[in-house]
């Protein structure tokens, strides 16, 4: 394992921001950390980066423990949510800043920097001030600046939260491409489920500083380990016997036993409210021609945690 994190603890007064957090990551793996606001995602990332002093726990990278090292001495680089670009430097100077501490000659650094500029599709912008760039371009600079120092582990804290939906999508693809080019391991914090589902090899779900579940996207969605995970990922119909996801219920035309009581057209799908003698359900269906008042049958498999 490239990264081994064991029993991290961090408290702020009475508040446990990290509570016995442990996980591992393989080389080239992308791990997404998902959870509600205030659950400790940033704290986790900052403790890996060396900006938060841990109460206890160990962090190993490549078999060496790094939790005692200062931030600047760790083989880890961070892309921050607000980027933290240096506004008084050009794009290229931002990108090559880290090489200064790796014994590069200025000329070699600039050459290396230009390779990064091209890799990230920033040609033509290298001499601009970073303040003249768009949000997406700034994001790329922040990424390039972190990647150029060849960290073993790249940390990203909600890197796409300032971007609009379309840009997010292309940046996700960009990130996957970068992972393949540089063969880098990433821990990626987000509270956008879609980020996690589209790029993560594995997802960590956090709540109140605890790690609730870790696993592939399918695993955590289909086999949630706790009520929290179940409710946090997607919508759910709960009953005494268990739960069923809205898209796992099939409406049967000409069937009996249930009645449509509400319908919302959502574009490429429709969302129905259906009642039977046991209760009411939210149902998501690609078919949009059921009408309110219509009697239908329900097919579903109730699961339990």
């Amino acid at each position, binding site marked *: 394992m490239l990264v081994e994190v064991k029993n991290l603890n961090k408290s702020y007064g009475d508040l446990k921001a990290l509570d016995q957090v442990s996980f591992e990551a393989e080389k080239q793996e992308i791990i997404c950390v998902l959870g509600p606001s205030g659950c400790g995602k940033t704290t986790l990332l900052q403790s890996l980066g060396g900006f938060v002093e841990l109460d206890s726990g160990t962090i190993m990278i490549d078999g060496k423990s790094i939790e005692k090292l200062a931030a600047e001495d760790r083989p880890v680089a*961070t892309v*921050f949510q607000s*980027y*933290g670009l240096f506004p008084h430097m050009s794009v290229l100077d931002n990108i090559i800043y880290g090489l200064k*501490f790796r014994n590069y000659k200025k000329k070699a650094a600039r050459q290396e920097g230009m390779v990064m500029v091209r890799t990230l599709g920033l040609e033509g912008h290298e001499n601009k001030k970073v303040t003249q760039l768009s949000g997406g371009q700034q994001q790329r600079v922040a990424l390039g600046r972190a990647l150029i120092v060849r960290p073993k582990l790249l940390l990203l804290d909600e890197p796409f939260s300032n971007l609009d939906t379309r840009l997010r999508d292309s940046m996700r693809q960009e990130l996957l491409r970068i992972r393949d080019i540089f063969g880098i391991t990433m821990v990626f914090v987000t509270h956008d489920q879609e980020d996690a589902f589209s790029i993560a090899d594995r997802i960590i779900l956090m709540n109140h500083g605890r790690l609730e579940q870790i696993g592939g996207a399918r695993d955590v969605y289909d086999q949630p380990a706790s009520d929290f995970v179940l409710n946090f990922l997607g919508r759910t119909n709960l009953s005494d016997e268990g739960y069923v996801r809205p898209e796992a219920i099939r409406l049967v035309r000409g069937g009996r036993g249930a009645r449509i009581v509400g319908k919302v057209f959502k574009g490429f799908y429709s969302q129905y409210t259906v009642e039977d003698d046991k209760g009411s359900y939210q149902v998501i269906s690609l078919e949009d021609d059921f009408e309110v008042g219509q009697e239908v049958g329900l097919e579903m498999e109730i699961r339990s945690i």
Partner: protein
Amino acid sequence: MDGGRRLLNVTDRALRIFMAFLVLVFVLYPFIAVFLKALLKEGSFGFSEFLFIKEELYLLKNSLKSSFLTASISTIFAISLSLMTFFISKRQRSFLMFVLLLTMVSPPFIGSLTYIQLFGRNGFITKTILGLSINPYGMWGVVSVQTLGFTSATAMLLITYLDSFDGTMIEAARSLGAKTSSILVDIVLPLIRPAILVSFLLNFIRAMADFTSPMIIGGAFNTLATEGYLSIIAKGNSPRASAISLVLFLPSIVVFIIYSYYYKQQQRASKNLRRVSSRMEKSGLYYVLAFLAGFFILWLLIQYLAVFSAAITDRYQGKTFFTLQNIKDARPHIRDSFVRSIGYSLIGALVSSLLALVLSYYAFIRNFKYMKVIDFIANMPYIVPGTFFGLGYIFAFNKEPLKLTGTALIVILNLIFRQLPMSIRTVQTSMGQIEEETMASAKDLGAHNLYILKDLVFPLSASGLFLAFTNGFISSMTTVGSIIFLVYPSRKLATLVLFDLVNSGKYKVASVLSVFIILICLGTSLVSYAVYRRGHVSRS
């Protein structure tokens, strides 16, 4: 209903015009008066008064040289002190702020007073400890005293600037492998360069305008400022004093323009920043900063220790002993002057914060164009030398219809308008936080503009007003330059009595007065800080 509305409109208009009138008469007119005095001779314009620059070139040279040294050294100390905030704990930060506050609430020549007591011919350090008898009077004395006096204010300014610094940049640099020295040199210093420049310039003009330090410890070292002061006091030559004031005033215009420019920029930059309190490893340059900051703080503390102990001790036959005699001796000097000082300062601070509110309201919420011009004029006294503003009052108000010289009113007016720029800044900061929607909805509900001022703007700016009032009080209590020519000899204020005492060598009694002024101002600011914090906490 209609009639009531009309009355409100008339009142609104009258208030506006009255505000503009006050600023024109009590700020602009005195400025013009100084110009006229210096340039106008027997009815015609001329620059003959400025010949002193050539004839007594050494004055200008002395001023430039010592001010440049003071500005450089105190800026270096201020940078070190402010950068220390990246390394120290919350507790240590409070202590630092307290020490800086100490100098802000002290009368300006406390430095000279202790300098003589510590390093003078019979100084405690030079004579008693080291057994030397050196002549402490001269340029370096002036520079060291000014440095000690000016550094705190600029350090505060830099700390405020650093507080709006995006800490993510520091964390980003660290995550790329940058050590403390590199972060400071590559990131922090370049980004605070504007603030450093402003600090340097502010210190420079303060040093140029300071006449008290060279008067007390300059010895044979004369500057433009001392010459200007003596021209009035000793020679009664007001055209010459005006000409000197103008020369001192010119650089401050440049500073004012630069300052306003960066002030706006800084406000814009710090708008959307999330404060990340980032820290750096203690290594490399940190040790240089810590040494400079530590040295400065030690020096400052020694100074205050010296004043306080001088106030309650005396020496007889080489022995130092505790005594209350100094305090008894000080009584006749304190009685009237302190009551007067406190009274004037209270009135001045109160009126100036209220004027700042009304002015800002018309200029920036109601957006009257001509009120913006008035706002600009009202801001002019901000960086002009105090003596310049004081001279303006003498020349402007020594004849009918506004014959005010010799009255208490002229002193109070001078304090009010000298203080107005600072009050405007403070009030505007808190006024800027009132949302436009709030006022729009009040209007929607039918509130007249005057009611918006009274019911919304006034209460919502309360914290700013309060702060402006406190600051106004403290700086009025400690001011010297602007009022020294205005005060009637038998009705002196505390700082002026103190100045006389220092000048006539009564250092013990002067120490007692200094301690009293410090305690009053320190008490005021600590109490008001506590009240302010309370108000903030209970609201949020």
